[in-house]
């Protein structure tokens, strides 16, 4: 790995440690799990540690696999992902949830997509993910399915469509197992009120506009649109399902994480259409903002104060929020 990327990863590790200190509440609430040990406080801490290690390894792989011309952009994307990924499962409401396990497995699978090796272990991982975290069907499994379908369209290798279908079927099997065993719940947490969520949506409108413009530009230029349509729409189930369940923190988390990881993988794959559109959008943002870093810092405000919980609690009375 290049020296500047090594320094970046070291800085990310230090940031992760500081974020753990900032956001970790040292409290485990009840969350449904297939095994009692997954709800043990010490084991939950170990899982959180593994999650942090896996995410750093994935970031290192993403940087290594990115073309030289886009290294800086990948660092921005990684920093953007970390704004959501690092604090989310340390704070009170989401520490100890099975999402951590799903994401550990999911990130390993994303890493496999990036390095284009060890595909064979993907079905096993899909089954494990589905059994431990049935809700991963609409979150991480949807992303892996979309990425595998994209690989099929890109490489025309039928094994990827097989992997994609097996991934979804095994996730469904995991859901069925969890219902049969009686531990399935949506495990919804109500950390963010509807009013606050609507206000967050208002604050995040610029990102929605950028995302939609990017998608439309890609679709306009693409010959075979199916892979892109699949990638764009596979992120919606998590948003819709958790929106209906009123778990708005997860809506924000998965809404951003899904599309950021998808964009990162497309950059690594050097998808020419995506690269051209990405550069256009990047330059338009650069022309408007004094620093690109603000794109990353802005949603972190919401994560710090609302999604990951305030450090003090008083009456919430700003326009009734």
């Amino acid at each position, binding site marked *: 790995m290049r020296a500047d990327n090594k320094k970046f990863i070291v800085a990310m590790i230090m940031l992760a440690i500081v974020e753990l200190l900032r956001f970790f509440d040292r409290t485990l609430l009840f969350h449904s799990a297939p095994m009692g040990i997954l709800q043990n406080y010490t084991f939950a801490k170990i899982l959180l540690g593994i999650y942090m290690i896996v995410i750093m390894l994935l970031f290192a792989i993403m940087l290594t696999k990115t073309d030289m011309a886009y290294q800086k952009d990948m660092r921005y994307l990684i920093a953007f992902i970390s*704004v959501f990924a690092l604090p989310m499962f340390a704070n009170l409401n989401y520490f100890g949830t099975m999402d951590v396990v799903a994401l550990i497995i999911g990130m390993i699978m994303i890493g496999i997509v990036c390095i284009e090796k060890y595909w064979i272990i993907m079905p096993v991982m899909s089954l494990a993910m589905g059994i431990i975290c049935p809700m991963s069907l609409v979150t991480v499994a949807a992303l892996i399915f979309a990425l595998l379908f994209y690989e099929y369209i890109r490489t025309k290798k039928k094994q990827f469509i097989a992997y994609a279908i097996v991934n979804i079927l095994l996730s469904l099997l995991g859901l069925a197992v969890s219902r049969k065993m009686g531990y399935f719940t949506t495990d919804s947490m109500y950390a963010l009120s509807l009013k606050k969520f609507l206000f967050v949506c208002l604050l995040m409108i610029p990102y929605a506009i950028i995302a939609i413009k990017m998608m439309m530009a890609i679709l306009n230029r693409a010959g075979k649109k199916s892979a892109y349509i699949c990638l764009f729409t596979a992120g919606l189930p998590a948003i819709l399902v958790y929106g209906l369940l009123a778990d708005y923190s997860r809506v924000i988390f998965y809404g951003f994480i899904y599309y950021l990881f998808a964009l990162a993988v497309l950059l690594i794959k050097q998808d020419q259409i995506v690269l051209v559109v990405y550069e256009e959008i990047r330059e338009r943002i650069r022309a408007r903002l004094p620093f690109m*870093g*603000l794109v990353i810092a802005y949603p972190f405000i919401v994560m710090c*104060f609302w999604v990951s919980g305030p450090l003090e609690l008083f009456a919430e009375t700003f326009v009734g929020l």
Partner: protein
Amino acid sequence: MMDKKTEIRNIMLSNIIFCFAIAVCTYQGVVRSYNSTMLALSYRYGFTSRSLLGSIYHLLNDILPINMMDYSVVLVFAVIVTACFYALLFYFMYFALKRCQEEYFKPLVFILFLLNVVTVATFTSSYNFFRVDLFMMAVAIISAIVMIKDKAVWMMLPISCIGVMFHQGFVFMYFNIALVLLICRFFDGDKKAKIKYGVVFALTFAICSGLFLWFELFSRTNGAAIINDVLADARAVSLDGHYHSTLLQHEVLGVDLAEDEWEWHKMNIMQMGFFVVLSLPWIWIAIDFFKGIFKGVNSRADKIKYFFVAAGALTMLPDYLLKIDYGRWVMSTIAYYAIVIVSLVAMGDLFICKRLLETYEKYKSKSWSLLLFVYPIMFIPFNDVDIDGFMQQLSAWLNGIVGFFSF
């Protein structure tokens, strides 16, 4: 390449949206008892400390056709005043950008963004919402604008006096900004200018010091006679009538609280240790910046001038050593360096401009530099006795293990 006017417009718009998001996320719709109880103090009881704000409020109560001595009105007043303060803060940003040469824009914008983010978060959050520090910082910003414009410099005297009248702690917390900028103008000016700035400096320093001594040592003489009236007002302007009794004991009755504060000092020491360690990236960059300045300076006059710029925050030392509101001291330390550096850039101090640009370019090229945008957000808002919620959390955890302080 964008023209300067468009670039400033984009910067201001980004800044306002960013600060609006912070304000929404940190506002909690309550004026704490300490901050509302200040309104009960007034000059109708004599020329006493911290009474300017209360006097203005009582005057408005007398003039306006609404009963201001009610908590709900206090809250509305606090929102209006805070909004006005942010307008002043943004005007300072706009004013500095207009004066700055375009090649030095980026580092200046970075400092201004940082200042705005920290300030808006701190003065919107519950601990410091409508705190008198807001008025002191407003006075400091106005002083900076006067010094940058370099017109009617004599106004530094009444402006600084107003700062002391808001809170005598102004002499340690925000007065350094006015004094250091006067020193910089003194060293940069010709003989006639040196006399002008020297006289303004001497008069301002002497009169404000005199005011401080009056407020601190002599102004609290008739506390027992007025306490009931003050209490009645304090109950009226505070949420559910819960006023801050410690404040009134100290300010009206002259009770010395130092003996009771040793355990808080121990907590401060622990929190400051954590804060310094976690702020090392920023401290490192600041030290590097000043090292470059002293290495590049040749003349003795410039060495002395920049020494005052670097060391000006040391006026905070008595507060750090004797008082316990470390959140406020950290806020004012950050404000000092940000406002002074921005002012010097706006004043066209080429040496500072060039050094700032060099530092900016050096760290911007690092692969991890973009994380510097994210990092400060974890520390805001600053509180009062606790530096911030993050340090409070860390010190509570460590104290649970070592038992350093007893609460």
